[in-house]
């Protein structure tokens, strides 16, 4: 897996026998001794936290499936009566699973932000980044289908709105929607296929996670300086240094998780989902779960439905080509003061998009002020705020990063990711004496 020399020494006759047949113990031992940059900060603990989240979702999900009835008449009752009231600790298992999905997304968003900031997507880690993007898309699909399973009002209508998006495609749209629904409306067959896929996809995610970890161990970790590992003194063995750091981070994360599960179990859900699905009664506001809101805002920002769907897909697709859009040779934004500003503006607009996704499209930004109507919407509306934010979202990747990498002046990058503490005076970045780079 990795290029570092194996230090595993089979201790017993059995281990020697096994090592020549299936070196699985060596594999595990090599993972533990993997040379890891010694300057990894807490932002680098989200990988471990995410592995924990996936494990929690799979374990709780398997138990929930034991008590769940995937049918239009039985789903809501099996969740709200069976699991929430009659199954021993069912409320806890479901609380962990439902809130666990949100925790998973909190962690994945922070993990992605860290990757964007420290340039973890750049060569030689493009495949690592691509696999991460695949996991993220799979996560969204899995979460969306999982949200349908309790078969409450928001489950049903969310499923209807999102699956109807496919209908926007010419020619293939309608047959595709019918195939997805298993009929001509969201109904029992839809629920059953979503349940089946919701059980399948987490294992696909787990497999892609294995590839993601593999792809991590070929070039090794990036680090906050973005400087390559140059010697053994730059690294520490993964265990015990990063096992203990990751475990501490996971434990702190569990505190936040527990606060939600035990004291705010419904904070991230919608009250409407406690009403059984009713195909004849549309809820006043159909809103997706918080983690999908920025994309929902991009979808609604575009006047034409098909273009909106393509913009939504494009917002994800742009992440896949990011390694080839960012032209700067400097990885970490620690040494890219200009790019850093554009990055924070991008984070800000992504959050604004999330907020816009939760609001009514014609809601006013400045209340009481009616502006001119332009492309179907008042200038002073959530839709126009979404449009401006979406424009920046795309411009950051498609315009700013490609041009900036060729024009910006970066700060001096240190020679090594780690120089003994004594040699760098306070206030200066490590290795500040190196010549400034003016071009990427």
């Amino acid at each position, binding site marked *: 897996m990795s290029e570092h020399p194996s230090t595993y020494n089979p201790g017993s006759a059995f281990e020697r026998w096994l090592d020549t047949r299936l070196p699985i113990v060596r594999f595990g031992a090599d993972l533990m001794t993997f040379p890891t940059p010694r300057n990894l900060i807490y932002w680098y603990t989200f990988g471990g936290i995410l592995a924990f989240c996936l494990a929690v979702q799979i374990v709780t999900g398997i138990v929930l499936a034991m008590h769940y009835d995937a049918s239009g008449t039985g789903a809501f009752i099996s969740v709200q009566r069976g699991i929430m009231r009659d199954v021993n600790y069912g409320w806890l298992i479901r609380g962990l699973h439902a809130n666990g999905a949100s925790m998973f997304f909190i962690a994945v968003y922070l993990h992605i932000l860290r990757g964007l900031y420290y340039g973890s997507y750049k060569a030689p880690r493009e495949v690592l980044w691509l696999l991460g993007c695949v996991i993220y898309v799979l996560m969204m699909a899995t979460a969306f289908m999982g949200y349908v399973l309790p078969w409450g009002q928001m489950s049903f209508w969310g499923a209807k709105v999102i699956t109807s998006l496919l209908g926007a495609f010419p020619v293939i749209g309608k047959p595709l929607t019918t195939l997805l629904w298993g009929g001509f409306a969201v109904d029992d067959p839809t629920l059953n296929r979503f349940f089946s896929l919701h059980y399948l996809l987490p294992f696909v995610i787990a497999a892609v996670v294995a590839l993601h970890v593999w792809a991590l161990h070929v070039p090794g970790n990036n680090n906050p300086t973005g400087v390559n590992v140059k010697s053994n003194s730059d690294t*520490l063995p993964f265990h015990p240094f990063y096992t203990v750091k990751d475990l*501490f981070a996971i*434990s702190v994360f569990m505190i936040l998780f527990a606060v939600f*599960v*035990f004291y705010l179990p419904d904070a991230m859900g919608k*009250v409407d989902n406690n*009403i059984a699905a009713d195909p004849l009664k549309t809820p006043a506001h159909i809103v997706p779960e918080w983690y999908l809101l920025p994309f929902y805002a991009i979808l609604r920002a575009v006047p034409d439905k098909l273009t909106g769907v393509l913009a939504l897909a494009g917002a994800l697709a742009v992440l896949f080509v990011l390694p080839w859009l960012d032209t700067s040779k400097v990885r970490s934004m620690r040494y890219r003061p200009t790019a*850093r500003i554009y990055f924070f503006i991008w984070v800000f607009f*992504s*959050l604004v998009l999330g907020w816009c996704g939760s609001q009514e499209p014609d809601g006013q930004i400045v209340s009481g002020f009616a502006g001119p109507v332009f492309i179907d919407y008042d200038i002073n509306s959530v839709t126009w705020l979404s449009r401006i934010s979406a424009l920046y979202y795309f411009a950051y990747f498609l315009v700013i990063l490609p041009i900036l990498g060729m024009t910006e002046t970066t700060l001096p990058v240190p020679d090594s990711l780690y120089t003994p503490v004594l040699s760098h005076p306070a206030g200066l970045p490590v290795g500040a004496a190196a010549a400034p780079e003016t071009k990427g």
Partner: protein
Amino acid sequence: MLRKLFAATAFAGVVAVLGAQPALASSSQAPLKEDVHWSFESPLGMYDQAQLQRGYKVYKEVCSACHSMNLVAFRNLGDPGGPFWNPKYPNPNDNPVVKTIAKDYQVNDIDPDSGDPIKRPATSADYFVAPFPNVPAARAANGGALPPDMSLLAAAREGGPRYIYSLVTGDGTDPPPGLTIPDGKYYDPWMSGDVSSYYKGDPHKIPVGGFIAMPPPLIDDRVTFDDGTKATLKQEATDVAAFLAWASDPKMEERKSLGVSVLIFLVIFSGLLYASYRQIWRNVGH
């Protein structure tokens, strides 16, 4: 510095996105009444059992004439945290209060000898008996409106028990002038809806709220409380809202008390891990 800014931005973002959501639901509705407080509202607060018993009485004598509660079984009344929980009866099916309540209801069954449909007295294991056999029957008896099932009512409305309390106590005033109220409906500022097409007054002052098919259900002394509490409208509404909050979240007491142990454990565990982290990294520059 920037690292901290980065962290703060990310954290603020998560908080902002999560916090933004409830803003939606309160579009056309009067602000919920703030003049009551329940013991279970605080993070560690539990249900007040006497209040749940009074609330159950209001539900049984008033609400249950029209509203079903299909997810709740009689035995649930005797569960830990429930209105009639009694530590002497760890199995709530044995609880004599629960048994007495159940046997006054008749449930459908099949005679095991003849196979004929029969009625038999309910047992603790049976679920609450719905007032109407099916949805069309419930609509027919209520002018076309369907009284919602009450099992999850408090969890299915923004504001929960406070919403129910506000709705059933009403505002005590006449409907706003200029508002035509359709036959068989009542105006309630806390009901979600849109009354603009029934309103002929000042277009800038369209009343909030909506129409509801339920007449104001509670008045002073609508029930007589067994514990001698004076049955004012406000008291009845407060108690029934508490009972409905329990029905929506019957495991709240178990949840909150387990949460304390879990959090204490996790804080200590995190402290130990942090100490281990400092110990392992103590001579390592990074």
